[in-house]
């Protein structure tokens, strides 16, 4: 066989259950940490979910956050957040900032007059300033968007669960959905801990993670199902190990190609898409881990009914009865 670049040896025989309590504990802990972080720190919702206005500014003068803030305080717009955006793809004299204005009382979207005032104020500080994007979402829509995002996640999980249940058995469906929840919660936890902006595109990313992770899990399950028929007397745990080992090389290959592509997106995709690319990148790593260590372990815990398993030769229901 010609030379081949390999991520995993030709034939592996790793015992994936050796540290099952460690991985299980680790997963549990991370999930709990993620939920706590989410509950305590909250998510840094973008305007999609909290309403308000964001204005992206671009100028050839360096961004002076304090001066920007001072200029806008005069307008009495309530809560104003200004963050400078850094990106390696920016030109030398390209300075970008994101100005976020909280929703204004009594109006759905911010009026053009208000935006014009903001733009005028900022222009006095940075004459070269331009406004490549202005987005405004009213509180009514943002509330609905949160609800829709949650509905999407639940609907997708249910859809997947039903499909796996139909194609496999309920234990697989339960195992994979818990593994999915694990992936999603930890990813959300990371967004909470680092206070990364959480908006609609991140929901799309989470759903993609859902799709990817289940994809990975199903490949393992599919092999497991095949091997269960092939090795009818082998203990469940060993069949699982065998199945994961057999598919390991594929799992790593696919994860790496996907990560390579996402890595390119993360580095070269520009700052607008970075949060989205990051969420998927992180989720793919997590999804790969969970399909190897979480989903099937859960199936093992629940146990599979291998009713069609023939009894070992020489044994019958009475074989252990002393005659």
């Amino acid at each position, binding site marked *: 066989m010609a030379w081949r670049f390999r991520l995993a040896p030709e034939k592996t025989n790793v015992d994936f259950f050796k540290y099952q309590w460690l991985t299980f504990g680790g997963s549990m802990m991370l999930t709990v940490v993620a939920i706590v972080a989410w509950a305590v720190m909250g998510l840094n919702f973008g305007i999609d979910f909290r309403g308000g206005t964001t204005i992206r500014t671009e100028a050839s003068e360096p961004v002076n956050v304090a001066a920007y803030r001072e200029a806008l305080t005069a307008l009495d717009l309530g809560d104003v957040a200004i963050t400078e955006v850094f990106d390696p793809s920016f030109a030398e004299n390209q300075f970008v900032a994101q100005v976020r204005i909280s929703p204004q009382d009594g109006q759905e979207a911010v009026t053009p007059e208000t935006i014009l005032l903001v733009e005028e104020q900022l222009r006095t500080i940075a004459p070269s300033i331009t406004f490549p994007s202005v987005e405004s979402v009213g509180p009514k829509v943002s509330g609905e968007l949160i609800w829709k995002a949650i509905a999407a996640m639940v609907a*997708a999980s249910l859809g997947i669960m039903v499909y796996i249940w139909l194609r496999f058995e309920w234990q697989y469906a339960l195992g994979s959905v818990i593994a999915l929840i694990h992936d999603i919660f930890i990813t959300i936890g990371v967004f909470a801990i680092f206070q990364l902006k959480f908006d609609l595109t991140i929901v799309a990313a989470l759903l993609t993670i859902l799709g990817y992770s289940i994809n990975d899990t199903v490949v393992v399950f599919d092999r497991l199902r095949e091997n269960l028929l092939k090795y009818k007397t082998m203990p469940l745990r060993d069949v699982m190990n065998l199945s994961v080992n057999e598919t390991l090389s594929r799992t790593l290959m696919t994860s790496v190609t996907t990560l*390579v592509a996402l890595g390119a997106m993360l580095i070269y995709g520009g700052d607008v898409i970075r949060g989205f690319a990051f969420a998927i990148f992180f989720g793919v790593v997590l999804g790969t881990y969970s399909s190897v260590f979480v989903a099937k372990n859960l199936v093992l815990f629940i146990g599979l009914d291998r009713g069609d398993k023939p009894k070992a030769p020489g044994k019958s229901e009475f074989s252990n009865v002393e005659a």
Partner: protein
Amino acid sequence: MKPLALWKRVLILLVCAWGLIGAAPNLFYGQVERHNDAAAAIEAAGGTASPEQTAALAEWPEFLPSSLVNLGLDLRGGAHLLAEVSVEDVYKTRIDAMWPEVRDVLRDLRDQVGSIRRAPSPDGVLRVTISNPAGMAAALEAVRGLGSSVVTLTGVGQSTIEVTAEGEDIVVQLSEAEKQATDDRTLQQSLEIIRRRVDEVGTREPTIQRQGENRILIQVPGIGSAAELKALIGTTAQLTFNAVVSRTTDVGADPGPRNRLLPSIDEQGVYYIVEETPVVSGEELVDAQPSFDQNGRPAVSFRFDTTGARKFGDYTAANIGAPFAIILDDEVISAPVIQSHIPGGSGIITGSFSVEDSTQLAVLLRAGALPAKMDFLEERTIGPELGADSIEAGKVAAMVAGVAVAVYMVASYGLFGLFANIALGINIALIFAALSAVGGTLTLPGIAGIVLTIGMAVDANVLVFERIREELRVNKSPARAIELGYERALSAIIDANITTFITATVLFTVGAGPVRGFAITLGIGIITSVFTALFVTRVIVEIWYRWRKPATVAV
């Protein structure tokens, strides 16, 4: 190895060819776009072309396909608005308009119901107090007679109005079925009017869609800002013809109940007190044209539909010598005195117009007024430079991803990796061809979807190749191993992709805007990658195998 049937191979190659040819225009986006624009302009002009248009037309050959992937707002720049139509406004107008009719039928029953008086009531509800409650039954029946049946599929047999008695009051409001029918009409009309107004500026492919019960999504590429778009659509433009009560110069004048004080557009400091309930509203106008009055001054002539004409005719007959106000956007355009009965439903608006004014007013009237007020729930402006930057970044990322994955596949699977790469190339072409064909919109997350597809598309091939390796290890003949590899990987590939497809479907259903764009590319990407991995590489492998007849296969 048993080769695929000839017709299958031909079909597969045809699909590939379609993908490559269909995707090709996107490589020459600017040229093809100019060609398409010119072709559309020439067709609109009835076949006459300017020299520039002829030149633009020649930039892309006619015989090649010219469908392009739509670029989303986040890539092209433009404005996005989500408007909520206050459908309840229309209930109020409708119910208010019923008052004269209700009054008239009850008047005819005066000996049974006694005196009648309109009682205060919330918007959209008409409350009439009668002094003799004994006649309530007769009154209810008479008022119910004013309703007609609802003309929708679901509302068949139901009356348009709901009339109930509450003590001494008769309460009239629109029935649920009629409210729904009215909402539909209001939305349809708003959509149509917005479309006409946006079309006036001749921008390319605006999206104007109804969303849910009472919302309208408007996306216009290439427009400077959402504020501009809002101004173009106009938020409250309403045309009505109302009876004038009096004329005053006092801005603080009390108009009295059910009357309104409105300024005159062309007479400084003059205000009109008009009846709140219009005689005829702009919805009943069917045509408006700039013209000249008998003195040769610019004017606008107009024509009502049948119901409008009847109402207008009755009113003018009964009110000869009285002034009559034409109101646009809460301003009185003019208040001519009714000279004579106008039976035909057409008339002429005179005022101190210039020719431009009358032309513009005619356009405004023709385009119609929005039937109800709109609130803007979401406004987004994306500058074209930002979009161009994103396209550039996306291109670079896709290229780097493609090359890295290709190199990696060859390093891992050698010749078979190369086959997978050819399939990957065809896969990307198919995605673009499919997107162009269905008129899908490419958004920034959509590009991310393609990049993700590049990474994941090889997955099916990896599954097959790994399987072939396994089969080779148990010493099957190469041909048999390849065949088994494809066969045995199938169920994993199908299951894995269907589950991902489920999430893509959910994303498409609940997502809006860019998220939906991502769902489309993801969904199409799944279908095309399964196709290329299972069929395209297989055909390539078969051709290669029969050509080289290798004794051993290295995967």
